[in-house]
């Protein structure tokens, strides 16, 4: 088999005196959907941020396509084809939906001036197709005026639109309604069919079981279980998540 | 006294405004020349127009153990205690540029070197009245950089006294220290008040831009001011400006330091010096002085 898309090797991450991740290793294969599960404070978001280049590991390293590397900022991870939906959504409240979606990846002409009409249209289209969120009548609305679920939908729309090789989803459905949650999960499967891998962080084991191919369960900053869907069932997963 | 023939005398000069005020250039130069001539180790400090800070400076100089302090006594009351403490400690204190309004009676300083700014304002006012025939009921304009600053109160007060005596109204406005902004404000005032009969600068900023403000407002009135700068000298020379008042600041720096050195080394008693003789500079006198501006004038 070819080298995995992305691999973590013995990653440790400390915040001052607190060790959030301890010697964590796992890999993400091509077209694979991984469920990253674990208790609150287990280190799931820290792992996602690390893979996105927001946090730098205290020790350990990553490899992309088998080549050892380190992400020092978000641009590095974007270059590696990683797109992330952050737990805290990472949106700028004072900017419009369109501008949030295209933030840092604006469509511009040769001089750097924005193609506003074009971006606006795409934004509207993405919002309507990727997530069927209600109540957003205009892509010019400020993100700060949206409801919790609407904000999350914008973050999802952005990541889905720019996805390339790996999509990281940190509790993407926490504020979503039943209908939108279903839509998102089927998006993940659709992307998988397009050979985009995903890492889904969630506390809902049913959702994870519904779409994931493999499960990585974390506890207190370490990996305690790493199993393919075929080799496990919901009961066992629940047991691992709850009891470790 | 305490300092030997070959030892350095130490002295601190305390100026009440901040270092960017041009007026004190010749003062500092005079002090430095005296320091070089009399083997004095001199440091100059600036109080930035804050009496509390000036107290700190006087106290700090005393704490550092200098032989003498030259200080602009810009407040009649604020520095009495600090100066008396320094004098009690055996430090020679000489006032310059500004004195206690009660003179020697109001303060422990041993001598004062300077002139009377109120009097120079009064003199300028009277000369303008005489030269341009200002009369009762007229309005004159006297913009002030910082209206509450001592120099502005004294000079402006002198002008007002001269005008009051004839029944002329003095209008004033805060102009600030920024020349461009001062010029704007003065121009706008003149546009609004076309009946102004004469304009008086107060400090170097208003005196420098006054002629240009009159030009901008497209009126023609006489103008006079205070202090010396190349622009002011040029304006007086060209006749755009009637005259400017000078007070020989070089001497206000030279004398105090020289006197401190002589008093510390030989016990000579400091004495008052009046530097205000020959303050009035008009077209007839300005050319001779022009080249010395910024150094000895």
């Amino acid at each position: 088999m070819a080298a995995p898309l992305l691999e973590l090797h013995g990653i440790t991450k400390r915040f001052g005196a607190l060790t959030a991740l301890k010697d964590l290793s796992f890999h993400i294969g091509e077209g694979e959907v991984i469920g990253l599960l674990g208790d609150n404070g287990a280190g799931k978001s820290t792992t996602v941020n690390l893979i996105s280049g927001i946090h730098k590991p205290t020790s350990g390293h990553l490899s992309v396509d088998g080549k050892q590397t380190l992400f020092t900022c978000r641009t590095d991870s974007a270059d590696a084809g990683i797109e992330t939906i952050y737990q805290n959504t990472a949106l700028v409240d004072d900017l419009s939906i369109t501008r949030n979606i295209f933030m840092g990846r604006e469509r511009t002409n040769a001089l750097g001036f924005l193609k506003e009409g074009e971006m606006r249209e795409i934004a509207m289209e993405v919002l309507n197709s990727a997530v069927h969120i209600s109540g957003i009548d205009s892509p010019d609305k400020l993100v700060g005026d949206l409801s919790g679920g609407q904000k999350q939908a914008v973050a999802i729309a952005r990541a889905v639109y720019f996805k390339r090789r790996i999509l990281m989803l940190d509790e993407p459905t926490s504020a979503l309604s039943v209908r939108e949650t279903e839509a998102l999960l089927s998006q993940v499967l659709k992307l998988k069919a397009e050979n985009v891998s995903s890492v889904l962080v969630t506390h809902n084991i049913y959702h994870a079981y519904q779409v994931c191919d493999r499960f990585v369960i974390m506890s207190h900053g370490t990996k305690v279980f790493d199993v393919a869907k075929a080799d496990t069932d919901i009961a066992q997963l629940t047991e691992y998540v709850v009891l470790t | 006294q305490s300092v030997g023939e070959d030892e350095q005398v130490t002295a601190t000069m305390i100026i009440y405004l901040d270092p960017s005020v041009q007026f004190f250039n010749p003062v500092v130069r005079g002090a430095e020349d005296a320091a070089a001539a009399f083997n004095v180790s001199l440091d100059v400090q600036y109080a930035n127009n804050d009496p509390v800070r000036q107290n700190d400076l006087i106290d700090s100089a005393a704490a550092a153990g200098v032989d003498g302090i030259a200080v602009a006594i810009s407040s009649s009351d604020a520095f009495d205690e600090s100066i008396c403490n320094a004098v009690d400690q055996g430090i020679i204190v000489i006032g310059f540029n500004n004195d206690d309004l009660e003179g020697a009676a109001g303060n422990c300083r041993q001598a004062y070197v300077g002139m009377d700014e109120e009097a120079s304002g009064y003199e300028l006012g009277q000369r303008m009245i005489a030269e341009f025939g200002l009369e009762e009921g007229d309005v004159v304009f006297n913009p002030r950089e910082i209206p509450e600053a001592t120099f502005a109160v004294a000079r402006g007060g002198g002008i007002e006294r001269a005008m009051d005596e004839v029944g002329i109204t003095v209008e004033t406005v805060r102009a600030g220290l920024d020349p461009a902004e001062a010029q704007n404000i003065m121009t706008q005032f003149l546009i609004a008040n076309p009946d102004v009969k004469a304009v008086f600068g107060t400090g170097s900023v208003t005196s420098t831009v006054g002629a240009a403000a009159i030009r901008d407002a497209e009126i023609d009135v006489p103008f006079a001011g205070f202090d010396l700068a190349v622009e002011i000298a040029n304006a007086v020379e060209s006749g755009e400006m009637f005259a400017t008042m000078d007070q020989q600041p070089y001497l206000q720096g030279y004398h105090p330091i020289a006197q401190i050195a002589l008093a510390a080394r030989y016990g000579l008693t400091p004495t008052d010096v009046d530097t205000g003789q020959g303050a009035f500079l008009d077209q007839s006198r300005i050319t001779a002085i022009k080249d010395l501006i910024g150094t000895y004038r």
Partner: protein
Amino acid sequence: MITATDSGSAPPRHGPAHYLRRFLANPAGSIILVFGLIQIACIIWALLNPNDFRYLSPQNLAILMRAVPVLGCLALGVGVLMIAGEFDLSVGSVYALTAIVMAVQVTAGMSGFLAAGIAIAIGVAIGVLNGLITLRFNLPSFIVTLGGLLFWRGAVLLYNGAVQVRFDPEPAFTAIFAGTIFGLNAAFLWFLGLTFAFYMLLHHHRFGNHVFATGGNRAAATAIGINTGRVKIIAFAIAGGMAAVAGILATARVGSVQPGQGTGLELQAIAACVIGGLSLRGGRGSMIGVFLGVLLIHTITNVLLLIRAPGFYLEMFIAVLIVGASILNQLIDRRGRA
């Protein structure tokens, strides 16, 4: 979808209230309205009393055009930086320093244009330095640039002592920066042009989008891949460079530089920005707002001088009117949203 009206499928018809509301939803909407109302009041009054209130006299209009650009250029630069979430208190000192350097160089025989270029380069360099110290050591820019305020003010004295410097450039220089073009003051045209350039940069260019994102939520902007450090440093550089431009315009006009000039301009520039609707916390505002904020401050001073308000207490009236205009702005703004 939640709709504002119950009008069903027919396209809703909009009354004037609707358009007013849409206009006010524009970030600079309410300040445009306030400014417009004040101008209309002044103009009507001036037409009724042409002799007592010479607001519309050619001299007064000329003064307006000459007076506004200095504060205006400072405020544009400071405004960009404020939107990026940082302050620059050193602009007043940089303004004085760059002007002095330029004047001294011209006195020494350099061409005015070259000297102006050097002045701008110095301003930009100081801005970059402010930015590097702020970011490298993670300090509040308030402290760094307060240090800059004192330091560069001192540097003025170190460079040329406490003396006023004459500025006598070639006539072409004066014509371009302080002359009259098409009947308008050249400095004012520069200011207009720069306002337009900054408007385009901030509101319709990629860089502006990054400035708003950086100031609005730095963590999110970083997480999404914007190099917020670089954005901030460029914004610092712009503030420094615009301080130098302000210095050039002021010096070209007055023909001399005073070492103490520019004191307190930093607060005035920030005030103009805040009046124009910029948030002190960054991420919000518009360049048109800054432009009108500057004009509003000047109009207030101008009107007070024209109606011969007692000059001694002028600042009191200015204070009241500035706060009053801000209140009016806020009330209109709230009405627009409610």
